[in-house]
């Protein structure tokens, strides 16, 4: 029976008959989520907007088509997602092997398209809550975002987003919490105990954790305090202020934008506003799990 689901993510409250694992408390803007009745392949209708080519072991092949008032996202191995960002609504491919993985896909590009239409800015960054203020941990894949976010979870801080953060300008920047999950590398999961999370899936060399419901909070926007840009490894923990113009160079590739002038401009103004509004830091740190707690403490104290 389709109805308003109890919970929220990125400020959306699903209207659906599907099960959800990663929702936070509270409500939000209604987002219709349904599963297609039958399997949908890559239908060539519509205008190809952009394509993500695969990187071995890291990224799937995906194509995004503009289709009427919305989009169709085809993802290799999953099928087609129909996204109407203005409704907003998402139709998921039929026959997903795993409900958890299906939900993870929903909170990826389809959700981003919906919250961009709402006026929010997606950024490839984890986010954590430090005393009621958000800190973004920004970096491309494989720079230790999730591991560091897991370190914050272990230290008792709320994880707001693990991979993609939703930035809202109120007009000061804030973070709208995303799915309550952590997809931790297997080698990290072997050695890092997450006492407030439950492993619910495993794939792509990662263990997928669902955060405890009593640790999730709701998806009310959290004021943003700082952006920490994760740099390479170093023997010492160093946290250095970065001028906004320099940080923009790093934030630009981490932003989600379509290859149109209008979308590049939207994105540019968003990240420039972000860079102008909060403290920006470069973090270098020992990339060792036994130092994770100290790195977290340093960010909490100084960022």
């Amino acid at each position, binding site marked *: 029976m389709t109805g308003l689901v109890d919970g929220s993510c990125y400020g959306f409250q699903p209207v659906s008959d599907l099960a959800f694992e990663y929702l936070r408390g509270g409500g939000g803007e209604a987002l219709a989520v349904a599963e297609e009745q039958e399997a949908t392949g890559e239908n060539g209708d519509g205008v190809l907007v952009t394509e993500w080519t695969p990187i071995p072991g890291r990224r799937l092949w995906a194509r995004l088509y503009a289709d009427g008032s919305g989009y169709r996202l085809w993802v290799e191995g999953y099928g087609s997602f129909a996204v109407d960002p203005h409704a907003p609504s998402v139709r998921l491919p039929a026959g997903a092997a795993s409900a958890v993985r299906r939900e993870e896909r929903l909170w990826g590009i389809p959700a981003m398209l919906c919250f961009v239409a709402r006026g929010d800015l997606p950024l490839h960054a984890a986010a954590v809550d430090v005393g009621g203020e958000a800190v973004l941990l920004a970096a491309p894949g494989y720079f230790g975002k999730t591991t560091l976010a897991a370190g914050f979870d272990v230290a008792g801080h709320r994880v707001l987003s693990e991979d993609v953060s939703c930035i809202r300008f109120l007009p000061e920047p804030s973070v709208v919490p995303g799915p309550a999950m952590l997809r931790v590398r297997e080698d990290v999961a072997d050695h890092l105990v997450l006492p407030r999370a439950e492993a619910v899936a495993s794939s792509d060399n990662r263990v997928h954790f669902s955060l405890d419901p009593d640790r999730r909070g709701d998806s009310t926007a959290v004021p943003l305090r700082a952006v920490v840009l994760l740099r390479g490894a170093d023997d010492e923990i160093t946290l250095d202020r970065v001028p906004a113009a320099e940080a923009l160079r790093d934030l630009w590739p981490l932003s989600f934008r379509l290859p149109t002038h209008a979308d590049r*401009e939207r994105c540019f103004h968003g990240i*420039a506003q972000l860079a102008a509004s909060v403290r920006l830091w470069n973090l270098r740190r020992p990339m060792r799990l036994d130092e994770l707690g100290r790195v977290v403490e340093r960010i909490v104290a100084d960022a």
Partner: protein
Amino acid sequence: MHVEPSTRLVKDENVAFRRLAQGEGGVLLHLESGQYHGINEVGCLVWELLDGKRTVSELVAVVRETTVNAPADVADQVIPFLESLRERGLVR
């Protein structure tokens, strides 16, 4: 890409501009190439004055009048800056 005092320059319509925090200047993004360029506070002022109507010498005069403690060689700074903007396709 020599810029003469009588030249009138206009912003390319494919360029987005954003000021950063006070004292941090601003950034220009060329929407076609995706390249962006950081500029200082005087660069921001020059950019905002580029309207296709003022000549370069008029623009230099406005910068001189509106900049606190403007150096005597404002033109020697502004003209190369404008030339660099033109070389990068940010003005025409």
